[in-house]
């Protein structure tokens, strides 16, 4: 997150001061921007969510992870990919397609790592002792399968030299990938984490598992077709535009199904959410999911898109989605799981809370500033204004945007410090419960309470 947000900050600063990087070709805006985007995607949000999935999958399936060794290999390959992404893009080796800039060898490594993770997940599912698959398991497995397929197709991996088709077909394929890499990777992984963390933090069963499965299957049905809503103003086939627009509006169904389910689960238990920093991040992420989804459905309307598309409004939208929704949930997953995974209490609840507020202020600030800048740009373009007259008008907003980027970067540094101190902190003999009246509880009581809660669950089902 630190590297990714630093690249974002550097890019935002270069938009204010284009000569900042001088003759250093490896940090010009055209290289910094794809590094920022791909590091946020593959370096911060996805691994944060995948880490949570690796934690909750065995617990929900009542088994061990199929292979810890394979998991470690996946982590090593994943980090190798991140190094390759930064080095290749900074050196100017790019396929020049937005969100799909990586060169073929890196593409292949990504496909391999997704295959390894899928194999580990599916084998864990196969050896499970719990017959029912909880909805988080569905989401995690679907995210890996769908991303594997989408990645191969979207990056045109059968053409190693260019990684692209030609003309409009390539634009269609690229936006199919560009939208789905967020919608079919970050969204299902984030929802899987939210469906796990919120009931646990609230100590309350999920409002409706049936409803959650309706949400899952409707997401699978609807989300795969909507990428072309980024191409409504270019000559792609009309039938494809119609499908993309209708399905984008139709996304309201899976989104509201998820949110109704999660919010009803937390109904009357906001105190529990507030007391757990992981739950706080995740719950805020669900609220931002509402905003980003409504924006997405709204933007797909051709009438609205004439003003909002191809300008900073889309950047505002993507920041609400990736940082506000998926990023918040990834951070929540990390803060919820890390103390349990390493068996040590969180180093500082105060720092985590501070980070929460910095990220939240940053996201809301981005939304406001980039929406205003986007509407100025969109309106100017709609009226046929030349770009050199528009740029001075939005300069001030670019300065505020870079300042907000600095806030997000500081948040990332604080989070990193907190996580490192937690990992390398003193192993606790007791489990510390933040905000609990008793503060400490013997770690050994875990199994006893589990049986107790399990018994209560069965009682409620029986009644």
């Amino acid at each position, binding site marked *: 997150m630190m590297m990714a947000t630093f690249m974002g900050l550097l890019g935002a600063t270069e938009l204010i001061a284009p000569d900042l990087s001088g003759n250093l070709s490896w940090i010009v805006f055209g290289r910094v921007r794809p590094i920022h985007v791909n590091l946020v995607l593959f370096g911060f949000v996805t691994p944060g969510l995948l880490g949570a999935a690796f934690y909750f999958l065995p617990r929900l399936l009542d088994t061990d992870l199929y292979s810890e060794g394979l998991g470690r290999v996946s982590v090593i390959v994943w980090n190798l990919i991140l190094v390759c992404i930064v080095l290749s893009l900074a050196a100017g080796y790019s396929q020049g397609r937005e969100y799909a800039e990586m060169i073929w060898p890196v593409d292949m490594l990504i496909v391999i790592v997704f295959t390894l993770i899928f194999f580990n997940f599916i084998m864990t599912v196969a050896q499970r002792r719990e017959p029912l698959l909880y909805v988080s398991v569905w989401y995690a497995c679907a995210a890996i399968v769908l991303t594997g397929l989408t990645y191969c197709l979207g990056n045109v991996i059968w053409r190693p030299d260019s990684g692209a088709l030609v003309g409009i077909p390539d634009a269609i394929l690229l936006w199919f990938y560009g939208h789905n890499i967020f919608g079919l990777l970050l969204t299902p992984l984030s929802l899987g984490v939210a469906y796990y963390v919120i009931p646990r933090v609230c100590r309350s069963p999920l409002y409706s598992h*049936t409803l959650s*499965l309706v949400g899952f299957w409707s997401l699978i049905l609807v989300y795969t077709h909507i990428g072309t809503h980024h191409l409504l103003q270019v000559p792609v086939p009309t039938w494809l535009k119609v499908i993309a627009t209708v399905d984008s509006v139709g996304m309201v169904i899976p989104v509201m199904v998820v949110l109704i389910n999660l919010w009803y689960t937390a109904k009357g238990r906001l105190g*529990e959410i*507030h007391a757990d920093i992981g739950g706080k991040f995740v719950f805020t992420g669900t609220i931002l999911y509402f905003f980003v989804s*409504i924006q997405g459905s709204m933007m797909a309307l051709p*009438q609205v898109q004439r003003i909002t598309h191809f300008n900073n409004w889309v950047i505002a939208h993507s920041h609400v989605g990736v940082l506000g929704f998926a990023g918040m949930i990834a951070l929540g997953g990390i803060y919820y799981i890390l103390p349990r995974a390493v068996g040590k209490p969180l180093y500082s609840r105060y720092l985590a809370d501070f980070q929460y507020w910095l990220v939240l202020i940053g996201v809301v600030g981005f939304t406001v500033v980039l929406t205003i800048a986007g509407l100025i740009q969109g*309106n100017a373009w709609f009226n046929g204004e030349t770009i050199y007259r528009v740029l001075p008008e939005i300069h001030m907003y670019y300065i505020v945007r870079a300042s907000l980027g600095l806030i997000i970067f500081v948040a990332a540094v604080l989070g990193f410090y907190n996580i490192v101190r937690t990992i390398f902190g003193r192993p606790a003999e007791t489990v510390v419960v933040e905000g609990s009246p008793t503060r400490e509880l013997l770690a050994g009581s875990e199994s006893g309470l589990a049986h107790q809660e399990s018994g209560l669950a069965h009682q409620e089902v029986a009644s």
Partner: protein
Amino acid sequence: MYFPYFVTYIVVGLLLGLITFGWALHSGQFRDQQRARFLPLVRSETPAATSKFGRLETYVLMGMACIGLLISAFTLIYSLLRG
């Protein structure tokens, strides 16, 4: 010519989806939904802790949510009027 790629993806995706859905139906994944609601609670290690929202915190959070709603509503109305 881009249709073969899409057709392949659609067929593979549809087949995977149908096979998975069929398996889920056959293996009883849609039965016993009441028990499924409690699955994340198994192995819950501690009783729930609670804490109250401060007044300032509540106002700030509500304010941020209102800003989000207002700016989204403004964008929609403005774009529909201008677009």
